[in-house]
């Protein structure tokens, strides 16, 4: 928008005429049509111009009729635009000049001319004045408009400001809430911290009490290896007062020498290694030296002490293991004694099995030969004696074997394995000497169990052979069967032989207890005690049920779960 400066106002009138139509001050273009806007103005101006022109024409030349056109210019002030002032001035000028030619002649020429020129001068002087007035008015309006605009923008800013203000207030409110919450939280934290501190103090106190009351020695070391604290028990063990230890180099004081008296360099000390290397050590074969210069064997654990992630020293717990060492020594002696005894026993068993059996076999075989080669010389009485000799030798032989087997149960570690019990019993029966009068039956189902196979074989073998050997009747049967119980398998070896009297139920399981001793050299009275030993060592029980003259039934159990032994 053009702004007219005072100095240049005079030169502007021409330019203003040709500038496009604007409504000053408002800043808004006018959208109404030009005719609509100015119709009253134009009507008035037209009326005035035609009236004055008519008046001029009706007057004689020489009357200054053109002067009236000043009113046109003045009315143009009414118009909003400055150029109408000039327009009306030009119209007035044209009409004045036209009037000069058209007015009825009269007066002198120079007077007429002078009148006309004067009129023109007056018109133009008024126009200039009007224009200047208009320009001033415009400037004022413009200034007013600007002010108004500024005021409006200010108002707008005000609104924005208010908005921001509101936002700010909201924010402030939020922050206040947050602060409040934080404050509460902090308060709680402080409270918790206080409580924690109190608990920590309590824990510390408790720990201190525990450390002081502990039966083991506890002391701490700093990074230089100086004692930082020591519990009374520890100090007492070492023959010192607590105050005598704190602040002193622990190694030089109590750990300076090895058990054999040789110097223990500080660099090799495992207590120091704890904080030098950050590793815990447990040592059982070193000594601490008491104040009176005597060593005590100790077991100690040296652990690095951390504060955060940095090692600040070590904590050592130790106990006097003199008594323990003594016990260990005694135990070692006992163990080696036991081992010695075991070896002796083994050798003894070996000697029995070889050296006792060999001469017996010699006796037996040689008496066989005697019988074969000198039958006639010996006669009936001699033969009987030799028979008895060989019977006794054989009996002795079986006794020795039985004893060895009995001793072996539990001494040798027989491994358990899954055994198909039915198959095992069938195998035993197949290798028994044939006995036509006694039928042996296996009643299905027979389970698969976990048992040392050889021992199970010995159990069944002894029970079945026992049943056959002491059958005591001409005909009958032996039945092997199994009943499944909740936790056990219960095996039964039943026979309908002569049976056992009730008073013998316990005796039959005792060593060397044979109810009919002289039937066979192989019945030694060891079989059932061996069976009992095996069954009981493998977590089972054995018992006998019998009706004398009717039947005998040996029952034994085997745990179903291998682990429950």
């Amino acid at each position, binding site marked *: 928008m053009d702004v007219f400066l005072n100095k240049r106002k005079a030169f502007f009138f021409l330019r203003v005429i040709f500038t496009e139509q604007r409504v000053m001050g408002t800043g808004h273009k006018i959208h109404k049509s030009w005719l609509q806007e100015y119709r009253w103005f134009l009507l008035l101006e037209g009326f005035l111009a035609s009236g004055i022109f008519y008046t001029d024409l009706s007057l004689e030349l020489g009357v200054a009729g053109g002067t009236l056109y000043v009113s046109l210019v003045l009315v143009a002030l009414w118009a909003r635009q400055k150029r109408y002032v000039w327009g009306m001035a030009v119209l007035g000028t044209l009409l004045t000049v036209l009037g000069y030619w058209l007015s009825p002649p009269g007066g002198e020429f120079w007077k007429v001319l002078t009148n006309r020129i004067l009129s023109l001068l007056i018109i133009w002087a008024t126009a200039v004045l009007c224009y200047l007035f208009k320009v001033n008015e415009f400037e004022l309006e413009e200034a007013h408009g600007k002010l108004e605009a500024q005021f409006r923008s200010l108002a707008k800013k005000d609104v924005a400001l208010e908005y921001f203000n509101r936002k700010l207030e909201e924010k402030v409110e939020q922050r206040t809430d947050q602060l409040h919450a934080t404050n509460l939280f902090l308060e709680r934290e402080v409270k918790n911290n206080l409580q924690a501190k109190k608990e920590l103090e309590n824990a510390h106190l408790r720990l201190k009490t525990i450390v002081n009351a502990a039966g083991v020695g506890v002391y701490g070391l700093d990074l230089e290896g100086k004692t930082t604290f020591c519990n009374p028990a520890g100090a007492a063990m070492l023959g010192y007062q607590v105050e005598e230890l704190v602040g002193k180099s622990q190694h030089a004081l109590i750990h300076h020498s090895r058990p054999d008296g040789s110097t223990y360099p500080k660099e090799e000390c495992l207590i120091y290694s704890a904080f030098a290397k950050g590793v815990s050590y447990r040592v059982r074969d070193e000594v601490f030296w008491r104040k009176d210069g005597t060593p005590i064997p100790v077991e100690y654990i040296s652990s690095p002490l951390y504060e955060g992630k940095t090692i600040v020293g070590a904590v050592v717990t130790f106990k006097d293991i003199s008594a323990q060492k003594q016990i260990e020594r005694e135990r070692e002696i006992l163990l080696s004694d036991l081992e010695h005894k075991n070896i002796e026993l083994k050798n003894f068993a070996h000697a029995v*099995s*070889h050296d006792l*059996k*060999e001469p*017996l*076999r010699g006796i*037996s*075989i040689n008496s066989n030969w005697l019988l074969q080669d000198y039958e006639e010389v010996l006669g009936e009485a001699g033969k009987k004696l030799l028979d008895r000799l060989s019977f006794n030798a054989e009996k002795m032989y079986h006794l020795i074997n039985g004893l*060895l087997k009995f001793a072996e149960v539990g001494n*040798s570690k027989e491994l358990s394995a899954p055994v198909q019990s039915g198959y095992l019993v069938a195998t035993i029966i197949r290798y028994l000497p044939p006995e036509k009068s006694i039928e042996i039956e296996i009643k299905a189902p027979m389970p698969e169990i976990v048992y040392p196979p050889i021992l199970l074989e010995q159990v069944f073998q002894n029970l079945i052979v026992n049943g056959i050997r002491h059958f005591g009747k001409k005909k009958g049967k032996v039945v092997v069967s199994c009943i499944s119980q909740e936790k056990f398998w219960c095996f039964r070896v039943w026979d309908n032989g002569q049976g056992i009297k009730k008073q013998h139920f316990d005796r039959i399981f005792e060593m060397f207890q044979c109810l009919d001793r002289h039937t066979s050299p192989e019945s030694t009275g060891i079989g059932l005690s061996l069976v009992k030993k095996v069954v009981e060592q493998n977590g089972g029980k054995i018992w006998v049920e019998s009706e004398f003259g009717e039947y005998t039934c040996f029952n034994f159990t085997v745990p179903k779960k291998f682990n429950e032994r």
Partner: protein
Amino acid sequence: MMRNGSPILIVEDNETDILCLKEAFEKNDIGKEIITASNGEEALAYLKNDSSTPRLPNLILLDLNMPIMNGFEFLRAIKSDTRLKAIPVVVFTSSTSRADMNETYGNCVAGYIEKPMDTKGYLEVVRVLNQYWSLSYLPTIN
């Protein structure tokens, strides 16, 4: 008596046992040459002697309890010898200890027979041996 194939080696210190065994072999009519050694060392000396190579036994009957070198030592010695370890060894002993049984079976013996108490027992032993091994037809060991 027909003597065919390789001999049988009996390693045994007890004279009675050797006599009984020989008698039992004869009574079972097994025409086998029998070589005897009274302990492990003697037996090993025979087996390791090059001159005996063509006459290596194809069965060894081994007692366990012997002086100088017992059966276990002898067993370990021949089982670590590539030339001799193929010869089947049957332990023939009075020991019924399971430890002995386990140890000898651990050393790959072919059988374990308890010494019998009477002369009939020997006959039975040899009969069973023959039944099981067909002694007359055992292949020759090289």
